[in-house]
């Protein structure tokens, strides 16, 4: 049955409302499930193209070797340039497996060290100012063998105590096999994520544990 001419404006109006509301809903739903929303939080270009995959997956360097504060304090911290030079004094990228890019990037690090210039990395995960997150405490928990069962961030049961590097992947995902680290590499790091995991593990969920 053809709608009457009178009903047309009503139908048009209804259609517009449906489209607008639908669009808003879709945007909100996508932004809820995609992390970060629409790739807005993709890590920007780093000053030195540092491939985690080469260091971790290929050369088996443990996370805490470079992020050495991760077992000692709140922040994991990026390594000092000096520390890169531990290896890169000798490894200059001229071996046949390395590409020309590797050579130039390693050269950047060496130059920085020689000229006494700190490297300005771009932050990938930004913790809000009102949140206290202590890496050390989390690693201590997951690596503690006296606790029989622990639960991962998605509720998965962890029976074997992981080592430090495995603990990192619980939240940060498989960084070791990624060339470029992006927020989406790991878990969505929202308050609910923290809260779910704390509840699973029966550890304190008092607000002041994380909020400052």
């Amino acid at each position, binding site marked *: 049955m053809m709608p009457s001419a009178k009903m047309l404006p009503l139908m048009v109006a209804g259609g517009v409302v449906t489209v607008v509301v639908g669009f808003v809903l879709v945007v909100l739903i996508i932004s809820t499930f995609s992390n970060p929303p629409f790739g807005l939080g993709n890590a920007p270009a780093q000053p030195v193209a540092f491939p985690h995959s080469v260091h971790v997956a290929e050369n088996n360097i443990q996370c805490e070797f470079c992020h050495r504060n991760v077992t000692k304090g709140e922040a994991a911290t990026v390594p000092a340039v000096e520390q890169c030079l531990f290896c890169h004094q000798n490894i200059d990228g001229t071996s046949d497996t390395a590409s020309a890019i590797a050579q130039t990037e390693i050269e950047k690090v060496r130059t920085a060290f020689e000229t006494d210039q700190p490297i300005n990395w771009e932050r990938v995960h930004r913790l*809000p*100012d*009102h949140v*206290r997150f*202590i890496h*050390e*405490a989390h690693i*201590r*928990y997951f690596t*503690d063998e*006296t*606790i029989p069962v622990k639960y991962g961030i998605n509720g998965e049961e962890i029976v074997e105590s992981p080592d430090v590097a495995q603990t990192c992947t619980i939240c940060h995902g498989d960084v070791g096999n990624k060339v470029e680290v992006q927020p989406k590499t790991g878990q969505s790091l929202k308050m609910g994520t923290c809260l779910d995991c704390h509840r699973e593990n029966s*550890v*304190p969920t*008092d*607000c*002041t*544990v994380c*909020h*400052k």
Partner: protein
Amino acid sequence: MVAQRVDHKWGMVVDLDRCTGCQACVVACQAENNIPINTKDYFQQRRAYEWIRIERYWEGQFPNVKAKFIPILCQHCENAPCEPVCPVFATYHNDEGMNVQIYNRCVGTRYCSVNCPYTVRFFNYWEPVWPERLRNQLNPDVTVRSRGIMEKCSFCVQRLRRGEVNVERRGLEPLTGERIPTADRKLNYRQMKEGNYLPSCVQACPTNALQFADQHDETGPVKEHFDEANEQIETREHGGHVDESHTRVYRLFEEIGTKPNVVYLKKVEPFPVEKA
């Protein structure tokens, strides 16, 4: 393992007979908690932030005049009037006897402040500003509250948390080096004192008028006072009569029934001013 934090119950004892009103606690609090600089305008508008403030009450007329000082800070009430009225749970009571304000949840209705009998909640009427260089002093353990947010004394929860993390981290008895069972890794008074984990005002108070510890901590200075104060409440709840004339322990505005976790000790007054 994360320490069993729920076992603590913090409390402060304020000895009014020791307090001289010197303002050391006030500035210590401002230094620790990133409290905005109280400009002249803030005072003129009566919007100055002093999480702990010294109130001075006059008594009598010249020449028989007295001034009494009382430090007033958030009383961390067990039955806090501010808590039920917050529509968003930005303020709530935690298991450690603390009344907590979560800044990022606050929407700014100011109802909590309206309903606080002690007037110890402070609203950020303006965005706090510091000269660029002074920002270096800001404590990274404490959020800077933006405008539209209610704030108040937190018992320096960041210092307690720092202490707890250190206790956990060490997991060892400091003197003997024995490993402490996880459940017993509590922050006791001695550790708080040595590790600078006491609230900033308590640490500064030159007359020791402020004392802070776990209410159940035998080694701490507050247990006996809290035991007595709780006994008073219990007696009253059972309809008994408390003889107040021989005890120094009291809670501010006890009759409202807020059960504060701050206990005051009466001022001793050999020559009271005759009340008109």
